[in-house]
C-alpha cells in the first residue's frame, strides 16, 4: 500500500495514522502534532508511559517464553548460509586487499633497493632524527649499565665488610683452639678444630682476593664506558655536519619567490621514452583520427 505525502509527514512526526484514511481524523492528527506540549503534559505523558515500561521490564519470563525465543533464534538459522556467504565474500575481499598490499609493498621495497624512489620523509628515515634517537637511547642504556655495575660493586663491598666480621671471629677461634690444643695435646678435637678454623680463614682470604679482582674488572668496565660519551660526541659531530649541509642545500636551491610556477612539458624531443611520438607515428595517429 503506498503512502500519501501527508501520511509520510505524519509518520515523520511520530504519529500513527489510521489505515482508513479518514480526512477528519487526519486534520485532527495534524492539529495535535502542531500543538506544543506544556511541561505538565509532558510529565503526565511520561508518568503514563513509565508504568508500562516498568511492567515490561519487571514481568518475569516464563520457560515457555524462553522456548519461544529460542525457537525464533533457531528460525533465524535459516539465514546463516546467507551470512556465511557474506563472511566468505568479505574474507575474499580482505585477502585480495592483502595480496595487493603485499605486491605494492614488494614493488616499493625493490624500487627503494634499486635507488629508483627515495625513502619516505618520515621520522624513521630522517638521519638527524635517527642519530639523535640513538644518542639518547644509548645514554639511557649506559646509565642503566652503570647502575648494574654500581650495584655489583656495592654488594661486593657489603660482602667484604661482612667477611671482616667472620675473619675476626675466626681469629678468636684459631687463638682459642690453638691454646686448647697446646694445653691438651692428647685431645684430637681441639687440634682438628684448630686446623679447620685455619682453613676457613684461608678461604675467606681467597674470597676477598677474588672480590678485589672482580672489583678491579668492574672499575675497568666503568672506565671503558667513557667510550660511550666519546661515541656520542662523534654522533653529534655527524649531526652537526648534516645540519650544516641541509642549511647549505636549502640556501643553494631556494629562490626569492618572485618566479611563478610554470607548466613543464612531459615529453620533449630527445627524451628516451616509449611515449614520445616520432614524425611518422604522429602522422599515422592524425590520419587514424581523421578517418573517424
Amino acid at each position: 500500500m503506498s503512502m500519501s505525502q501527508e501520511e509520510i509527514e505524519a509518520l515523520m512526526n511520530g504519529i500513527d495514522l489510521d489505515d482508513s484514511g479518514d480526512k477528519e481524523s487526519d486534520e485532527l492528527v495534524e492539529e495535535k502534532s502542531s500543538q506544543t506540549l506544556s511541561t505538565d503534559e509532558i510529565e503526565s505523558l511520561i508518568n503514563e508511559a513509565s508504568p508500562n515500561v516498568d511492567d515490561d521490564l519487571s514481568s518475569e519470563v516464563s520457560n515457555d517464553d524462553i522456548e519461544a525465543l529460542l525457537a525464533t533464534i533457531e528460525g533465524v538459522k535459516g539465514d546463516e548460509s546467507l551470512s556465511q556467504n557474506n563472511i566468505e565474500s568479505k574474507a575474499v575481499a580482505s585477502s585480495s586487499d592483502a595480496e595487493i598490499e603485499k605486491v605494492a609493498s614488494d614493488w616499493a621495497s625493490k624500487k627503494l633497493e634499486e635507488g629508483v624512489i627515495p625513502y619516505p620523509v618520515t621520522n624513521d628515515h630522517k638521519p638527524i632524527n635517527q642519530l639523535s634517537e640513538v644518542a639518547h637511547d644509548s645514554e639511557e642504556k649506559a646509565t642503566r649499565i652503570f647502575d648494574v655495575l654500581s650495584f655489583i660493586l656495592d654488594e661486593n663491598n657489603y660482602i667484604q665488610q661482612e667477611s671482616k666480621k667472620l675473619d675476626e671471629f675466626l681469629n678468636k677461634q684459631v687463638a682459642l683452639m690453638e691454646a686448647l690444643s697446646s694445653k691438651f695435646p692428647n685431645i684430637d678435637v681441639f687440634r682438628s678444630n684448630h686446623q679447620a678454623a685455619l682453613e676457613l680463614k684461608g678461604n675467606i682470604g681467597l674470597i676477598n682476593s677474588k672480590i678485589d679482582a672482580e672489583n678491579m674488572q668492574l672499575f675497568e668496565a666503568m672506565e671503558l664506558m667513557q667510550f660511550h660519551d666519546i661515541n656520542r660526541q662523534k654522533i653529534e659531530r655527524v649531526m652537526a655536519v648534516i645540519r650544516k649541509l641541509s642549511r647549505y642545500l636549502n640556501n643553494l636551491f631556494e629562490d626569492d619567490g618572485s618566479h611563478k610556477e610554470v607548466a613543464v612539458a612531459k615529453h620533449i624531443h630527445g627524451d628516451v621514452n616509449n611515449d614520445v611520438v616520432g614524425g611518422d607515428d604522429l602522422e599515422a595517429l592524425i590520419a587514424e583520427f581523421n578517418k573517424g
Partner: protein
Amino acid sequence: MKILIVDDSSTMRRIIGNVVMQLGFSKNDFDEAEDGIKAWKLLEEGRYDLVLTDWNMPNMNGLELVQKIRGGGNHTKTPIIMITTEGGKAEVVTALKAGVNNYIVKPFSAEVLKEKLDGVMKK
C-alpha cells in the same frame, strides 16, 4: 672538601664521581651539574674547593664557565680541571689561557685523574 663535577653526560659524571670516591671522598663531598648554567648557579649558592668540568656542553660550555668563574665571584682562585674529548693543542692552550689549572683528555684512566687531583689539591 667540596667538589663540583660538570658534564652533560650522566655516565661521565658517574665515572668521575666514582674515581673521586676511590680517593676517599663520599657522595656528599661532590655535587653534579649538567651544563655551565647549572654549575654557575651552584657556584653562586655554595662554596667549592675544586671544579671538574667538561668542555662541550649545551647552554653554556666549559670554556665559557671557566671564563665566568675567573671573571668574578666567590671562586676566582678555585682550582679547575678540564676533562674533555677536545685533544687539540690549540684547545689545550685556549683552556689554559682561560684559567684552567689542569687538563685531561678523554678517555682517561682512574690513575691519571687521581694524579691530577692530587697535584691540584696539594697546591
